């Protein structure tokens, strides 16, 4: 006998569920999320970055958290995503995604990731294993696959997704859905405006009855990476310059006074990793900084308005300690680095980093998105503004967003829906996909292998609207 409580899984009949062990894959710029449909968190969250070392026998690729953070000789870190928010390097993207699926979900069936050469520094075994891989059963032979895509994905990219899933992974059924819609589903909404502030891009997606209104989809590069860049600029522009030393370079540190130069002993590498590795490691420190120091000016009004800066100065600062022991209390400058998301004119800038376009700030995106939607649907959409993406976890982000939206639309009822738990905020699109793919009524939507073979990759345009 099963007494229902909060920790037991709901009866599938209750939500019309019918689980077919589908896999949901939500590739992002920062991390790639994969897991079984019907579960509440992705089992596998892998970095979307990969390591590359060039040896005589050609390039070698490293995947997974452990591999890309180990300072191997001549290791460079790359990302397959293009600056336009669409996958650029399909070959490695496929491998990263496959790694995300096979390393944790489907297990060792195709080949053990430890042995299949993907993570093997030894160049010789590489080709052997790749050949072996082709002879092997394909990794998704008996799991339908639901993938997510950004709202602005091109037709070509969508077809490529389908080809990879069918040809390389051999999935029996496939479906492609936009992250915006899925994030809305995760919050139990079929319609709304989804504001997704990820790593490389911020996007605003109007969704009506589970369908993206394509004309309204807006994106801008002002997102997590932009904030990281702002922090770098802030470090550079403060006097004296704040040194940014990533963890892997530090051997041991000693405590120093606030603002005093660090006294740490550094590691010495015979052949150091490449600059891109260092940059990626620095990014980790910056994420830490974002998590613990950066704060969004909560409003009302902009940070630069009136006496707001003075008010911010009067608030107690937040301390931060670098991996090498350098530490300081950050005052009002911690507001400034995130201000660019809402007020580009206030962004820090220098010769290499020009002031971002005014149209790229989040309030403008929302305004643009709403203006491309039929007037009758607008008030309803504004009642369901779903906030998702890792960078919305910035402290006080939602307060500010709320103020900004209410300033633009004072006459409508605007409601922000931002799930509290970090996991739900970061992985909303995956969770929505997990819900969707576990529904019994969803199974009629899958693109089956047979259909793919009959109609070709173009079927994705017809079926995944």
């Amino acid at each position, binding site marked *: 006998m099963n007494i229902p409580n909060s920790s037991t899984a709901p009866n599938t009949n209750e939500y*019309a569920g019918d*689980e077919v062990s589908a896999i949901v894959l939500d590739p992002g710029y920062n991390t790639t999320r994969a897991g079984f449909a019907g579960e509440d968190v992705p089992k596998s969250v892998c970095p979307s970055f990969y390591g590359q070392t060039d040896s005589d026998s050609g390039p070698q690729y490293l995947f997974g958290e452990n591999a890309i953070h180990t300072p191997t000789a001549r290791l460079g870190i790359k990302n397959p995503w293009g600056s336009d928010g669409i996958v650029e390097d399909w070959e490695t993207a496929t491998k990263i995604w496959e790694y995300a699926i096979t390393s944790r979900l489907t297990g060792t069936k195709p080949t053990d990731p430890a042995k299949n050469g993907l993570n093997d520094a030894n160049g010789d075994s590489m080709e052997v294993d790749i050949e072996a891989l082709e002879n092997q059963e394909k990794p998704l032979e008996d799991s339908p696959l639901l993938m997510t895509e950004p709202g602005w994905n091109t037709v070509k990219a969508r077809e490529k997704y389908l080809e990879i899933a069918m040809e390389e992974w051999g999935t029996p059924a496939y479906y492609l859905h936009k992250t915006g819609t899925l994030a809305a589903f995760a919050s139990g909404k079929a319609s709304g405006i989804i504001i997704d502030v990820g790593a490389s891009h911020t996007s605003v997606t109007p969704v009506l009855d589970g369908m993206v209104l394509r004309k309204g989809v807006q994106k801008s590069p002002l997102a997590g990476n932009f904030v990281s860049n702002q922090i770098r600029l802030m470090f550079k522009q403060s006097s004296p310059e704040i040194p940014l030393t990533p963890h892997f370079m530090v051997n041991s540190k000693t405590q120093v006074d606030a603002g005093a130069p660090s006294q740490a002993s550094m590691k010495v590498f015979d052949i150091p990793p490449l600059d891109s590795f260092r940059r990626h490691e620095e990014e980790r420190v910056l994420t830490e900084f974002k998590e613990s120091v950066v704060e969004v000016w909560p409003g009302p009004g902009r940070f630069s308005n009136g006496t707001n800066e003075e008010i911010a100065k009067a608030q107690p600062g937040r301390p931060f300690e670098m991996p090498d022991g350098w530490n300081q209390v950050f005052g009002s400058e911690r507001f400034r680095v995130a201000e660019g998301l809402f007020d580009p004119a206030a962004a820090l800038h220098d010769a290499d980093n020009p002031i971002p376009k005014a149209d790229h700030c989040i309030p403008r995106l929302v305004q643009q998105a709403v203006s491309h939607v039929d007037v009758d649907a607008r008030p309803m959409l504004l009642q369901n503004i779903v906030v998702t993406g890792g960078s919305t976890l910035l402290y006080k982000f939602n307060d500010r967003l709320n103020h900004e939206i209410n300033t633009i639309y004072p006459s409508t009822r605007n409601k922000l829906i931002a799930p509290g738990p970090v996991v739900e905020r970061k992985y909303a699109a995956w969770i929505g996909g997990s819900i969707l793919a576990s529904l019994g009524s969803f199974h*009629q939507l899958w693109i089956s292998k047979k*259909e793919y073979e009959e109609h070709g990759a173009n079927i994705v345009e017809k079926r995944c609207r």
Partner: protein
Amino acid sequence: MASGRDVRDMLGLSVGGDAQKTAVQKRPKTTAPTRRIQGVAREVAALYGERPPPVAIFEEKKAYRAKRQSTGPAKRWVQQSFTNQARIDDLMLKHWRRKPAPQSAITNGEDSAMEDTENMEPFIESNAEFLKYNVEPEMPTFTDEEYDAHLRSSDWSREETDYLFQLVAAFSYRWAVIWDRYDYQPSANSSLAVQEPSINGDSSQALAALPFAPSKTRTLEDLKARFYEISAKLMKLHIPEVQMDADQYAKYEMLAKFDPALERTRKTLASALMNRNMDEVKEEEFLLAELQRINMAANRLDAEREELRSRLEAPVPNQQVAAGLTAFTSSQALQALFQQLFQQDRSKKRASGGAPGRLSLAGSDILATPTSAQHAQIAANRRQSMATLPPPTPIRNLSPQEEIRYNVSTHDRLTSGVTFGSDKLLKMRQAKSNVQTQKIAAALQQLGISDLISIPTARVADVFEGLIGKVGKLLDVRKVREKEEGECRVLESMKARLNGGGGADGAQVDGAADGEKLMKDEIRDSQEDVEDEDEDEDDAAREDDADAYGEPDDVDNDVDADAEGDDEDEDAEGEEDSRAQSVRQPSESMSTRHISAGHKRSASVLSQASTKSSKRVRK
């Protein structure tokens, strides 16, 4: 309390032996039914002694807890392949299902495992559970002939129309999505086909000569208009208008009446409403609150006025008709009423031998306008009152003269005890509030009635009572007049503001005079029934009038009324008046009794008209 033992003690009976005995007798009784508490060590239980434990002990066995049922060996689950009936291809997916219990009685592990491999292979579940969610939208359909005959449009090609229909079906009438995804690219061959006739001309000309512009941007209203137009036409084709039932006709009307231009303006307004800035929103909120306040005040004032008028009109207005007036504001209600009257009339006619009465109704009147229905209502009213009033029952009544002569009075109810006539008179002078009492006293003084009335006979008392009643009414009228004056002033100042600074000083004075006259008329009108019999009192009232006018005269002078020469404004006023009067009309024609009341009620309106006409005369 005295126990049996004490009693025995007092009576000197031996205590020891008996008590011992009872104790011995009791022991086995009490111990026998005591159940051993489970889950407690025997030593601990022994500590409780004979008495029940001080803490209630709940036995573990009794506590609520779902019992773990032993349902035999663990059930087997299998990955069951199934096909979904909602799919056209036979995609096979697998889900976990309880392994169906083996048909044979053999529960031997090995055997069932054997069966597994044998039986499960061919079995494929066919899942129709979710078929019900696979709904297709209902779409209008047309054949090529129908299209050619009825649905052609200069703006839309057949191809684009089909494309539109596809999208509508694909997105189940979600117009916002349809419009969002609408991206019609005329296919190459079709545009070629159209171009063929003019192939000799240059291509840009040919393109311009196309009956429809290729891939032009369409608004949501354009799409809707086309779709609804086709839907309406098809509906009409398939079901002729006369055969449509109410629902169908309503739908047809809605489709046929779709006006894209109107819709477009509505949307512009809607978006303007949404894009108001903060100040405008605040202002609107403020104004709404203000409006509500004003409405409430107006309602209250109306209620007060209503109450007063009902007191002024001595005969209680015919309730039935008054109710009828409110009930028959809609043509539907009037129609119903007419039907009812018609029935009555017919039955009466039959009873009276078919001789058509003077006010009989003919069947041809059924489809008459509301006004004629009202006439019918009057007629019916009259008839009804004649028919339903019972003949007065003859009682031995003395004529008034006789009553006076014999000094006989009849009373509905007699109070017990003896009262002085002077007390009664004194009581009448007193009102509820002190101020009112003083006002009454002042009025009486003006009338020259002394505080003490020397011979308070019953007749004097009666007359005095009448007088007091009139004085009360007078005072009420005065109060209302003041209020109305204030209102007039507000309205006039508003009017003046509307007219801008156009009014010259002279005109202002004139206007003020007008306003004053207007009010005077009004008051006089509304006092018609006060001044009917008692001349003295009427005089006093006029005096009062003059007195009361003393103050507002001064006030009015600085409120500038409408400029005399402003013809436009006067016209507007005239319109308003006539409207007001036409609104009155039904009530006037409802009953003769009511007409007078109605007339009085509209006194202010009439007086306005009269002032205006007098103004014209002056001009």
